[in-house]
């Protein structure tokens, strides 16, 4: 018995050692014990970033890192809505000058036709320094220490921190120009090169020049972009540079708030071009060099990525003004204080939703999204459908923050298709009525309720809320699909849709010409079994009009191929805005942007292949205008044309729901500005206390398991001993006599 008690005690003693936990009261902490109580934010990422080089990174899972490290000249105000651009490293917003074909300045109010070029002049603040980095390290004699590494130097280098000496230097305008030149680098394949080559003067020729230069052996190893002249970009002085673009493109200023236009020092480009470093995966794509509030100190994207405070970053402060309600919700408690507040941000790789969610509930992650399987556990609807956390979450002090994303999910009609797009004037009119009928019949309010757990706003047009040009209420209602009843937009009845069907030539869903039921084809990307119910629901929506909907499921590559070739009939698609301007939504239906049969060689985003001369004319007028009443009027006209033509089922604008622990402060979520982490603040002592409360180990199961095993095995051991002690042949006393 004493032995058994000893064994149990041994297990109790060994487990805490195995768990390697510095704090004996908590065994399940996935973070190192040395981090307990520190000012660290714990976040997660599901997909490993492909690129951290700001010339290449574009996905949201990449920008969440690069936006904290790199500093483009502009940024968005953290609290103001609608989104407002403010200077980042720039002293002020860029000075914009327009020029005519003779390179003479023209006034701001000049007609767009008279503007041949626009020049953006950006002045940056002096005294901004890069993070410590070996690329800047010099010897006492002023020679670069690590620009010509040999095998011996590289033998002890496995990661960037293995370099003994790091240094910094001041940010200059040359670094911004260098980065813009990198957009055209033939090896880097910047995703916005095609778009920018259409605007930045000389960028296309510059790319051709670099391609030629790259063919030489020296060019293969490293192209020093300082030696190649780009006509559209230049330095005025150490702190001022200009970018010249063709024509007038007011939205260009938004690009200056994206990491693509961040500075890159030539020293880093040269440093990372060394073959020995590339072989060890030490590249600019892997180890960024920035001036921002954080620097990447650990990059193991299969496990965790760590951002730490850049010791050379200073001089930025928490905003002192916000929107009504921000003061009450505590968002201005830190007004005027120096940022960043957090010393370190740990991003842990979590591929699966269940472990991620459970670790959030245990307090090991500070924030979490809400998956469909945990939605009911996390959120409840009260009053007028207002979402709030459940009692269980509220007990833990978890709060919910919601925001409507500047995105739209829609179902598009391919306007080249003879049935839904129509041919000939009569055919097009008939197809328009068919599309309108379907728009009325497909009940997106029901869709949002069933499939998005209420997380969305049904769309009345392409522009998402929060973007200039969007109208809410009666003024923003789509009169083709809705009618205003009792102060709210109500979807029209099916009778209206059936009438439209009859007018379209499909009374009761029967094609008047052939006498057959109307069959339409819905192209979707191959779905998991979970999404089948959504497709069934969609079939039922079309069935309301007696339309047979055939779902054509395919993989993403083939789906894209169909869209490019214009072979799809009805398809689903989505768009997340790059910047908060209506142009970034309305261009999705601009005729020259059509995807199919587009011979312009540029990228195209009009998947519905919609064309309307009046709309295109208004678009060209609107895109160059500043926001104001006149622009709003034109947008209203454009949106009305779209509603009438119905090239899309307008779908819905998703709402982002996020859960935050009580110790996580200064959160105002949005998906336009990405450099938000410098504003966050954590109460790490409270977090430590809560973790201990929530994670005390439960030991009785181990005891029970041990006793059960002992109980089950005891008869067996007893039988074994008896068997071993027994004789092979039993003696019979009587037979011996």
């Amino acid at each position, binding site marked *: 018995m004493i032995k058994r008690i000893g064994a149990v005690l041994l297990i109790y003693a060994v487990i805490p050692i195995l768990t390697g936990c510095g704090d004996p009261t908590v065994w399940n902490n996935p973070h190192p014990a040395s981090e307990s109580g520190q000012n660290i934010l714990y976040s997660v990422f599901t997909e490993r970033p492909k690129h951290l080089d700001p010339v290449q990174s574009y996905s949201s899972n990449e920008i969440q890192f690069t936006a904290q490290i790199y500093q483009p000249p502009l940024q968005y105000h953290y609290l103001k809505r609608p989104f407002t651009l403010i200077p980042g490293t720039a002293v002020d917003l860029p000075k914009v000058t327009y020029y005519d074909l003779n390179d003479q300045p023209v006034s701001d109010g000049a007609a767009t036709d008279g503007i041949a070029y626009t020049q953006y002049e950006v002045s940056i603040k002096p005294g901004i320094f890069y993070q410590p980095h070996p690329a800047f390290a010099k010897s006492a004699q002023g020679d670069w220490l690590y620009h010509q590494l040999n095998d011996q130097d590289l033998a002890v280098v496995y990661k960037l921190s293995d370099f003994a000496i790091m240094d910094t230097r001041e940010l200059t305008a040359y670094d911004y120009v260098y980065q813009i030149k990198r957009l055209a680098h033939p090896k880097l394949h910047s*995703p916005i090169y095609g778009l920018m080559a259409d605007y930045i003067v000389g960028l296309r020729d510059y790319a051709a020049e670099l391609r030629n230069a790259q063919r030489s052996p020296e060019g293969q190893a490293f192209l020093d972009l300082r030696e190649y002249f780009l006509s559209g970009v230049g330095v005025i002085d150490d702190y001022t540079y200009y970018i010249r673009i063709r024509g007038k493109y007011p939205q260009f200023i938004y690009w200056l708030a994206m990491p693509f236009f961040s500075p890159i020092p030539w020293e880093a480009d040269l440093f990372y071009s060394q073959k020995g470093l590339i*072989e060890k995966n030490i590249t600019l*794509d892997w180890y960024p060099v920035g001036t921002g509030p954080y620097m990447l100190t650990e990059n193991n994207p299969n496990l965790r990525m760590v951002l730490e405070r850049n010791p050379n970053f200073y001089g930025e402060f928490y905003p002192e003004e916000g929107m009504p309600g921000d003061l009450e919700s505590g968002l201005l408690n830190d007004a005027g204080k120096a940022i960043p507040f957090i010393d370190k941000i740990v991003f842990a790789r979590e591929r699966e939703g269940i472990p991620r969610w459970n670790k959030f509930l245990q307090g090991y992650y500070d924030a979490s999204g809400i998956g469909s399987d945990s939605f009911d556990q996390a959120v409840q609807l009260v009053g007028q459908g207002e979402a709030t956390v459940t009692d269980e979450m509220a007990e833990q002090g978890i709060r919910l923050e919601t925001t409507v994303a500047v995105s739209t999910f829609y179902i598009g009609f391919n306007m080249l298709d003879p049935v839904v797009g129509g041919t000939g004037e009569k055919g097009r009119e008939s197809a328009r009525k068919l599309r309108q009928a379907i728009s009325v019949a497909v009940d997106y309010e029901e869709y949002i309720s069933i499939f998005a757990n209420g997380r969305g706003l049904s769309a009345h047009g392409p522009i998402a809320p929060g973007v200039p040009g969007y109208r809410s209420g009666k003024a923003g209602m789509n009169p083709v699909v809705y009618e205003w009843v009792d102060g709210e937009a109500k979807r029209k009845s099916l009778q209206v849709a059936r009438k439209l069907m009859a007018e379209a030539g499909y009374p009761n869903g029967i094609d008047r010409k052939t006498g057959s039921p109307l069959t339409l084809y819905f192209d979707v990307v191959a779905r998991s079994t979970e999404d089948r119910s959504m497709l069934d629901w969609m079939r039922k929506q079309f069935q309301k009009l007696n339309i047979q909907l055939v779902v054509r499921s395919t993989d993403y590559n083939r789906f894209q191929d169909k869209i490019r070739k214009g072979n799809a009939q009805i398809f689903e698609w989505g768009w997340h805005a790059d910047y908060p301007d209506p142009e970034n939504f309305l261009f999705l239906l601009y005729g020259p942007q059509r995807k199919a049969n587009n011979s312009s060689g540029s*990228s195209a985003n009009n998947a519905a292949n919609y064309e309307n001369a009046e709309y295109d004319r208004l678009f060209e007028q609107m895109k160059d205008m500043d926001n104001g009443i006149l622009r709003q009027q034109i947008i209203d006209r454009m949106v009305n044309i779209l509603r009438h033509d119905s090239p899309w089922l307008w779908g819905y604008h998703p709402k982002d729901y996020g859960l935050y622990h009580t110790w996580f402060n200064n959160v105002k979520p949005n998906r336009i500005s990405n450099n938000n982490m410098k504003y966050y603040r954590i109460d790490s002592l409270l977090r430590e206390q809560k973790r201990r409360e929530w994670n005390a180990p439960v030991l009785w199961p181990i005891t029970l398991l041990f006793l059960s095993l002992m109980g089950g095995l005891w008869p067996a051991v007893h039988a074994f001993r008896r068997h071993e002690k027994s004789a092979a042949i039993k003696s019979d006393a009587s037979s011996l006599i």
Partner: protein
Amino acid sequence: MLTYIVRRILYAIPILIGVNLITFMLFFVVNTPDDMARMQLGAKYVTPEAIENWKIERGYDKPLVLNENKDGWKKFTETIFFEKSIAMFVFDFGQSDDGRDIGFEIRSRMLPSLAIALPVFVLGLAVYITCALTMVFFRTTYIDFWGLVLCVALMSISGLFYIIAGQFLMGKLWHLVPISGFGTGLDVIKFLVLPVIIGVVSSAGANTRWYRTIFLEEMGKEYVRTARAKGLSEHLVLFRHVLKNALIPILTGAVVVVPLLFLGSLIVESFFGIPGLGSYTIDAINSQDFAVVRAMVFLGSVLYIVGLILTDVSYTFVDPRIRLR
């Protein structure tokens, strides 16, 4: 034996070429180089020019397996298949589609995979054999009967269930170990406890039954009767004689998987956040990174062939009658 090993290695070359060809064909049936370029460059503003440049830069601008614009051998050598395959035979895996050195990645990820797979393999083998011998020892008793019932029950449950239930009970409900994650140094132990237990338990049913069958077959042989007749205790009969003679079928199943331990487990690594080769493969498939998929399939084939050769060699150690020629 050396001749035998050399011959087996030579046999492996056409097998590897075949595996490589099949991988290549299957991959490119689903993906074209244009698809791969779009996947890498993003979908928003990508121009045909950018796609073409990406293909040229990565060597995907050539024909797949036959270059009709060339003469002689160049018809075959100036193709994507040849250029992407030939270097692998000297284990030069090149760069992934996002520009990273695959060999470096594989080397750095093997250890985390091994950290899970090796304890599961060793501990599992010990547990399964012990349980099987115990059941054989107590055959026809309640222990054997309920042991079999338990084995069948364990076999009937999905591997994913063990993971979710294990994380729920030990991580979430009882707070005994972290739900998932990985660490460095000794810190790694706390992350290994749960996946190792789950790894062992999830395969216990099938393996224990398999070993039990092997041992039962051996128990009926004459040398067992002889051992008993000379008065050896039953546990000596089992552990000294039966176990030794049952090693050939055990080795057949066990040694072949030893080299594959390096490759890790796709599901376990994904659920427990282990930064090993299993999750590397999953990532590559998801991002349509042909270079990595091809490298991992090739590596898997090589390790499997090595495993088979090692199995043959191991027979000579446990059965002196076997000679490899």
